[in-house]
């Protein structure tokens, strides 16, 4: 009997972790300006859930439960660390703000985009932005990220914690930039997502056990950005580009695992659903104006994908833009 409850609690916790991890970290980080503390508090909250839920049953609103516990952990952490009067004032403000936000709506506000902008801030080393987004929004551990980015786990862990430290100490804000800065700053976010995608894309097997597929996670992040910024044409372009590439994953290798060039791939092995979604996104992007790199690259992919219907790539559409790029495209 207890075993059953245990199982149920674990499953509930896993489901919340999968669906809400990034949202919970983003909210806590935006409230405190401290990513590392938000992550620590949340992992402690998950640990509490795994001991509490099997005994008392999983709560009605597991997200809210975890958030409440994580907040208490944060307040404890601050209290332990600082004792000056100023810190006490800060603490009271923090807990009041958090209470108010919690009472205002049962819904946890979605600060994930703000968190992405903080991770891809110009004051953060460009090389660590993608790993930072993968860790904070998706909960990847340093070792997994390190193996994808081909660096040692220790070095990756150190670089991640240095970046989080920088966010806190330098006062990097958690918010969506003003419209004047938005295009440039969004570019940095998209570039990080694409970097994560590229790491997953070059992973020849993509099936290594215990390792989540980065390409799939990058597509998930791309969907998140387009959901939160539905009128950003380059965000739509990037998602289209990733979906077009992903559509050919199954056709990229033959039965022996050897690489199959694009021209020799069987279009029947491409994922029609992904291609259709990519085409629709590209069309939507073109309606907003503001052509950029990702839409162009997605358009080149689209001209190749047409072979699925016509039997040949649309070279006429591709050539004037960039012959070189599509020869190397795979």
């Amino acid at each position: 009997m207890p075993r059953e409850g245990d199982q149920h609690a674990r499953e509930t916790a896993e489901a919340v972790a999968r669906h809400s991890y990034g949202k919970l970290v983003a909210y806590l980080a935006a409230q405190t300006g401290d990513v590392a503390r938000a992550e620590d508090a949340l992992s402690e909250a998950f640990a509490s859930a795994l001991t509490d839920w099997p005994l008392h049953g999983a709560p009605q609103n597991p997200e809210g439960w975890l958030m409440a516990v994580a907040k208490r952990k944060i307040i404890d952490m601050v209290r332990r660390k600082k004792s000056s009067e100023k810190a006490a004032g800060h603490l009271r403000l923090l807990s009041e703000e958090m209470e108010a936000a919690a009472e205002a709506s049962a819904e946890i506000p979605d600060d994930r985009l703000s968190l992405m902008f903080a991770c891809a801030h110009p004051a953060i080393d460009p090389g660590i932005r993608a790993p930072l987004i993968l860790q904070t929004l998706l909960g990847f551990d340093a070792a997994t990220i390190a193996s994808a980015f081909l660096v040692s786990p220790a070095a990756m862990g150190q670089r991640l914690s240095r970046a989080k430290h920088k966010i806190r100490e330098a006062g990097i804000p958690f918010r969506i930039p003003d419209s004047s800065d938005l295009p440039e700053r969004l570019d940095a976010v998209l570039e990080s997502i694409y970097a994560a995608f590229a790491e997953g894309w070059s992973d020849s097997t993509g099936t290594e056990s215990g390792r989540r597929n980065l390409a799939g996670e990058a597509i998930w992040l791309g969907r998140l950005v387009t959901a939160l910024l539905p009128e950003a044409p380059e965000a739509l372009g990037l998602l289209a580009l990733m979906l077009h590439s992903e559509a050919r994953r199954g056709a990229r290798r033959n039965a022996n695992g050897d690489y199959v060039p694009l021209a020799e791939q069987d279009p029947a092995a491409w994922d029609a659903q992904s291609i259709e979604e990519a085409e629709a996104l590209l069309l939507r992007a073109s309606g907003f104006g503001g052509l950029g790199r990702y839409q162009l690259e997605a358009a080149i992919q689209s001209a190749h994908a047409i072979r699925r219907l016509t039997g040949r790539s649309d070279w006429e559409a591709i050539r004037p833009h960039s012959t070189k790029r599509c020869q190397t495209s795979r």
Partner: protein
Amino acid sequence: MKYLLMVYGNEQAMTALSKETMEQAMAAYGAYTEAVKKAGIYLGSNRLRPTKSASTVRVAEGKTQVLDGPYAETKEQLGGYYMIDVPDLDAALSWAARCPGASHGSVEVRPIWEM
């Protein structure tokens, strides 16, 4: 949050400027200082005399050692600073970019460690 904007520039190039250019530069700094004050974020600012007037002090085993010159010989030198109080790094960076020093040298932005 409080930030120190440290203005670095090439001293030698600065001293070689014509009187006219120098006056323009000073006017630009004057206008910038005014803008910082008007925004209500000003905590303080100063221009420093050139590094050839600098002395560096170090105490080792109770003995004071004084050296002629700056702490480090660099191509660009610290020439002045502004201390401002703004909500976050983005605000500090945009004020740093408006500083005349950012156009002829560089401005390092450092958060103040509040005690």
